């Protein structure tokens, strides 16, 4: 199929990196989204909920802030306003009237958190009825992380938005038809309020927490707990601690979110990952550099030196990581948070300084995840 397209030149997908499709990060997971103009991204409601602020990652792995402006929980659509305009190509919406079974489908997204990827298949059914809604059904591979990404036709026009797949079946994925997407976008263009949620029954835009739809009287709690979309949920104490500590270290916690109890960000050239495992330990880790072939004895002695406590280095293969472990019981001692937050701040500073030191003093090489090359080229990370 791909060869046919290349010969015909009908499907110019040579450089998908130029397309305005980006990865969306929240405190519950990651998904995909695409530009509907330079400052607005369309994705799934389930990708951004229950958060009102999300992070959008660009090709160079920097992240910008996005603010959720409109949700349609029933149709699983959301629009996010970006902190600044992006230059990615805005893909056109197709008219959606010519779709037929066996027609090619090209899905763009970030499956299982991988970089932007293209998967292909065909339309299995252009208008499949499921749970009283119509979907475009496809056999193209859909994985977690693809949600909210565009489904394209051969002319590189959007024909649907990836939303879900059947876990109990092979190759049965679904997209929200472009006609619904077009209507959602057009209605957003006329939106006056900063934030609104569409009624699942009548599509009326609701701009404040209410139990009954002001237009059709539907009991909104009975369907989607729509009042929850207007409340910022109380964070888990562990999340509250980490995000407070990150803020204290000058890191925007929204931009650092990387799914449930996971955070990732760069500080200077050093990548930092934070995760909670086994409900007992909160782990901070920064892969800094790779060992070279000389001076190893001195390097290893430096890495194991007691002076680094409470921080410590370890080796994953040849990759040197700086780490900090916080016991979860510490997180439930609010009067100690200032001290612990200072440890986190010092960890961030040490990570930022250590990769350079390892390279300079011990002949190490940058770890693949560090951004030394990027920063050398003049890039800067927003804080």
């Amino acid at each position, binding site marked *: 199929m791909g060869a046919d397209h290349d010969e015909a030149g009908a499907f110019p997908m040579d450089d998908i990196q130029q397309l305005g499709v980006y990865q969306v990060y929240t405190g519950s997971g990651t998904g995909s989204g695409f530009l509907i103009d330079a400052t607005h991204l369309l994705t799934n409601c389930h990708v951004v909920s229950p958060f009102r602020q999300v992070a959008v990652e660009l090709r160079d792995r920097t992240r910008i802030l996005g603010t959720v402006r409109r949700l349609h929980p029933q149709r699983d659509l959301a629009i996010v306003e970006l902190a600044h305009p992006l230059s990615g190509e805005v893909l056109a919406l197709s008219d959606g009237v010519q779709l037929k079974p066996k027609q090619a489908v090209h899905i763009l997204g970030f499956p299982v958190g991988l970089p932007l990827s293209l998967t292909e298949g065909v339309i299995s059914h252009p208008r499949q009825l499921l749970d009283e809604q119509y979907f475009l059904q496809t056999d193209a591979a859909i994985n977690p992380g693809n949600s909210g990404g565009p489904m394209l036709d051969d002319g590189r026009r959007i024909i649907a938005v990836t939303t879900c797949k059947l876990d109990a079946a092979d190759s049965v994925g679904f997209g929200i038809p472009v006609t619904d997407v077009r209507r959602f976008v057009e209605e957003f263009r006329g939106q006056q309020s900063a934030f609104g949620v569409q009624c699942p029954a009548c599509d009326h835009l609701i701009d404040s927490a209410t139990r009954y739809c002001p237009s059709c009287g539907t009991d909104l709690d009975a369907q989607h707990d729509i009042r929850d979309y207007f409340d910022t949920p109380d964070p888990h104490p562990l999340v509250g601690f980490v995000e407070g500590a990150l803020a204290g270290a000058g890191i925007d916690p929204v931009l650092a979110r990387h799914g449930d109890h996971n955070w990732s960000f760069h500080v200077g050239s050093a990548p930092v990952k934070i995760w909670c*495992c*086994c409900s*007992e*330990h909160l*782990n901070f*880790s920064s892969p800094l550099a790779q060992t070279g072939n000389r001076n*190893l*004895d001195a390097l*290893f*002695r430096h*890495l*194991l*030196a*007691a002076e680094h*406590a*409470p921080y*410590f*280095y*370890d*080796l*994953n293969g040849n990759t040197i990581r700086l*780490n900090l*472990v916080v*016991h979860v*019981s*510490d997180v439930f*001692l609010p009067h*100690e948070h200032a*001290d*612990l937050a200072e440890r986190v701040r010092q960890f961030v500073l040490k990570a930022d300084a250590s990769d350079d030191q390892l390279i300079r003093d011990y002949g190490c090489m940058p770890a693949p995840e560090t951004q030394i090359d990027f920063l050398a080229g003049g890039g800067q990370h927003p804080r």
Partner: protein
Amino acid sequence: MSITSLHLPAPIRRRQHHAPSDHARRDRAVELFESGSLRESVCETLAYLLPGTAVPDLVGEPLCFVQGSARVRVGIERDELAVGTVLAALQDGSQATAALRYFLTRMSSTGQLFQPRLRGDSIALEFRDRLALMHPLKLIEVLQRLPVEAYRNDAWLAQQFSVALPDREPVPPLDDDEFARAHLVWQRHWDQVDALMTESRRRRSLRVLDALGSLAVNHVNYALPLFGAVRARLNESADDFTDRDENPNRRDSVLAKCVKDMQQVGADELRACLGHLQYAINPQLDGTPSLLTSMLGGGQRMQATGELRAAGRALEAALELVSIYLYLLTHYSWPEEVEAALRAGLDLASDQPWREVTDLLWEHANSTAQTYGSHGAHDRDDDEAEAADGR
């Protein structure tokens, strides 16, 4: 010729004194911590883990206790609690780079609170934190896990990297008679496992592989006071061949390789790895009546074993039953009468044909569960223990 029975001799390993944990002391330590009595909380935590041990004030005089071959020191310095044990020291002739790489790769790790730290040429496992952050559950985790890492690795490190072991508790060796018996147990065990490998491959049975893997490692750890390099090698292989999520072909090949490796262990090497280690903190879990009910009464494994028995698959059923008994005796500490009852089951099964083992142990298991088990619904913890029984 097919193997027709299993020899299950009495253990040479000395019985660990059974002293059920007094969880009220742990709860008291938590209360003290939460009320701001930090030093008292530490002392109560130590009393919970080390019943009967006199705990010094920790400021002027640290507590030193022996866990296996590790000497663990616990002391208070200013407002910090420090826990540590010296693991090894680099010396002339050590493979220093390889040893240091090993510490960084295998002993430094996220997911644990203590870490290896180098001072001069001496490497220690250390943990240190302010008393205000010394929640009893955190301290218990450190005191239980840190010494294990030390005593499971020290002799192996010395053998692999020629490092010195400057602060290691001497391990009382086996006397000649004990060693002679231990050597026989060792040789016969691995010959049996070797023969059962053939049966496992002939039958291509995952159940046999599961039970055999469990038996291979648990019978050794139950019967012999094994430590050091040989135990480290065995446990490392067992991590793979008892892993039920691992590819069965790989498990089979790792077990086969392990059997060959263990059969080649000479008398001198074995003698150096046998000794009666002392444990201040019981390394075994507390056995409970509900666990007995779950494992021997009517849990999933016994139901599956009953199906094998009803289908006339005597070897599979017998191996499964023996492996359950060995698992309970290896990983759990029991009151003397319960341990004797479990041992009696193995005595019944020893050197008997598979079918008789199946019938005898089936009856014995039910009777033991009736006598010593709990008679209510078994609790969730025990279901989890059963589910986690990889070995």
